[in-house]
């Protein structure tokens, strides 16, 4: 168990950067999640740490060791593959014991450690089975036990849950998190599932087009996204684009939105749906109030999404918490859409920045 440091790590294929200037300092025992859309370089980054992709430049430290040049078998990292990659010709126990065996642990000493690792994932009763005799969820846990049994310095997980069904995923998610905290093992997980990232990690890294967009806690990313990309990727947002005039953002449609902040030039405003208030009568106490027509109402159990058009080119999404006595608007209703300027997440677009997702 150790601290993991990536220092301006880059991987170039031809003139295309799969990962560029990735710098991360992951504390001993921390659970860090790499989050981002497909092709943004998450796997590439993880595989550089594991030693399967040779960085074009940059350095990797595990604890005090510089491992940038070390082959995978000398890095002491525990890796869990998306497809589990259990050795089909070995029993569960042999699979789990493989790392110990490679480290020269004698058979007699291996047995208790194998059992211990299997007990962690509650599979000690299946030690003699072959991988093909296990369910997907059990295979997943064996893969985890195998990666943990030899006490690696860091645990690396590449979309470990993506082959499980939704319900199982929730269970295993909690299980991995508990285990990680109990063992205090430094962990890096790759996912493109936001919810997974939010529920499991201590800190999240949002990547796009090979670059780190932002590193922070769930709350940092949600409430203070550094770029429009992050605002769109973590949670949902409505984006309003325009030019700043003093503390007012003038949209292309001509609408003026108060921002509570002075900026210059082109800007993008991100609004979280749950921060937007919908009322039939003009509300008091908001510095942004617009009248619009309800276009879509989607009921989702605890919450309802309402899409309101406030100009031919601007549509705002508002979220209403359902409950007793809450009256939902109907499509075609004219409603007031309101938010206070400090509720808006504000971001200035830079040049060559990944497009925000909607």
């Amino acid at each position, binding site marked *: 168990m150790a601290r993991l440091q990536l220092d301006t790590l880059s991987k170039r294929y031809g003139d295309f950067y799969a990962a560029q200037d990735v710098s991360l300092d992951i504390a001993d025992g921390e659970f860090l999640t790499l989050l981002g859309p497909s092709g943004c370089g998450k796997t590439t980054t993880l595989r550089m740490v594991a030693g399967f992709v040779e960085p074009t430049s940059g350095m990797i430290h595990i604890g005090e060791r510089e491992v940038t040049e070390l082959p*995978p*078998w000398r890095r002491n990292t525990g890796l869990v*593959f998306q497809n589990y*990659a259990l050795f089909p010709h070995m029993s569960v126990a042999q699979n789990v014991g*493989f*790392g110990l065996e490679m*480290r020269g642990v004698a058979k007699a000493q291996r047995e208790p450690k194998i059992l211990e690792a299997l007990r962690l994932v509650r599979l000690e009763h299946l030690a003699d089975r072959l991988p093909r005799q296990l369910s997907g969820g059990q295979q997943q846990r064996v893969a985890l036990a195998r990666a943990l049994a030899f006490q690696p310095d860091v645990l690396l997980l590449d979309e470990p849950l993506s082959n499980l069904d939704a319900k199982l995923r929730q269970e295993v998610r909690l299980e991995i998190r508990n285990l990680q905290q109990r063992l205090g093992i430094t962990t890096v997980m790759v996912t493109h599932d936001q919810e997974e990232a939010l529920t499991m990690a201590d800190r999240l890294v949002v990547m796009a087009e090979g670059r780190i967009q932002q590193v922070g806690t769930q709350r940092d990313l949600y409430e203070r996204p550094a770029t429009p990309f992050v605002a769109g990727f973590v949670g949902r947002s409505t984006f309003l684009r325009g030019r700043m005039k003093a503390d007012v953002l003038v949209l292309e449609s001509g609408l003026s939105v108060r921002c509570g902040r002075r900026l210059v030039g082109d800007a993008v405003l991100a609004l979280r749906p749950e921060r937007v208030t919908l009322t039939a009568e003009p509300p008091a106490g908001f510095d942004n109030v617009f009248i619009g027509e309800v276009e879509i109402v989607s009921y989702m159990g605890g919450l309802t999404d309402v899409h309101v058009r406030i100009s031919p080119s601007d549509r705002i999404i508002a979220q209403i918490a359902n409950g007793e006595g809450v009256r939902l608007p109907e499509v075609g209703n004219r409603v007031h859409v309101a938010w206070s300027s400090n509720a808006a997440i504000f971001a200035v677009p830079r040049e060559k920045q990944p497009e925000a997702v909607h």
Partner: protein
Amino acid sequence: MDTSSQLRSGTVISASSLIGPATILVALGVIVPLLFLLRYSFNEYDPRLLMVEAFTPANYVDFFTDPYFLGAFFTTVRISVVCTLACILLGFPLAYVLARTQSRFKNLMIIAVVIPLFVGNAVRAAGWMTLLGSQGFLSVTLMDLGITSTMTEIMFSETAVVIGIIAVNLPYMVLTLQSVLESVNRNLEEAAFSLGAPPLTMFRRVLWPLSMPGIAAGTILTFILAMNAYATPVLLGGPEFRMLAPLVYGQFQMNNWPLAAAIAFVLMATTLLLTVVASLVTRQGFRN
């Protein structure tokens, strides 16, 4: 209930009509002649009367007591074992590269492997002659380079036959291994590496055991082909060189059908026996 039993008998009928023709063909074309041949092998040979009806193991006894035949027998087994081992050693790396390559030219590479099979036996033998003969490319080059002072004659020797058989059998081994290696996920190798196995250990513990089905199939295939090789030993081995398949034909030509039949059965039994042994050994390897 009725419909299901109808369905089932329908399936049986269509299944038997599918495998029926092939079965009949095999029965008539292979098994019946084999039974005749087996019967012949216990007959007697008379230089004037040719085959004489009898029931005697004399032909088999002759075969296993005559140094001439025994020599051919051991040469055949030795060459087959050597060629098969060589095919495994040469074929595995080739098959691995083919299975793992991301190259756009993968199909071309596979065709390149198979090309030796496009060429007929006689043409191929002629090719080897220009390469291995005393006036051939290899001999002349070695002399030109001053490595040898006399002509190197590889043609018409056991070496030439071994080289020739390997060249014919290697594609079979490579293609068999390649298909099995492709089914071994690359992640398994990486998993072994990440667990601390250096490449050789990974190979021994993961890749080799998982490719055992391919090794077994390839071994059986190339071994049977080598045991029964006819054209290559005749064309590259020269008149003095003896393997069993040409010997069988030679006896037929001399009209000694009983002996030819006996040799054919010795060849077949040996091939079968060694094939069974090879597959038992590889299965054992797979278990560990």
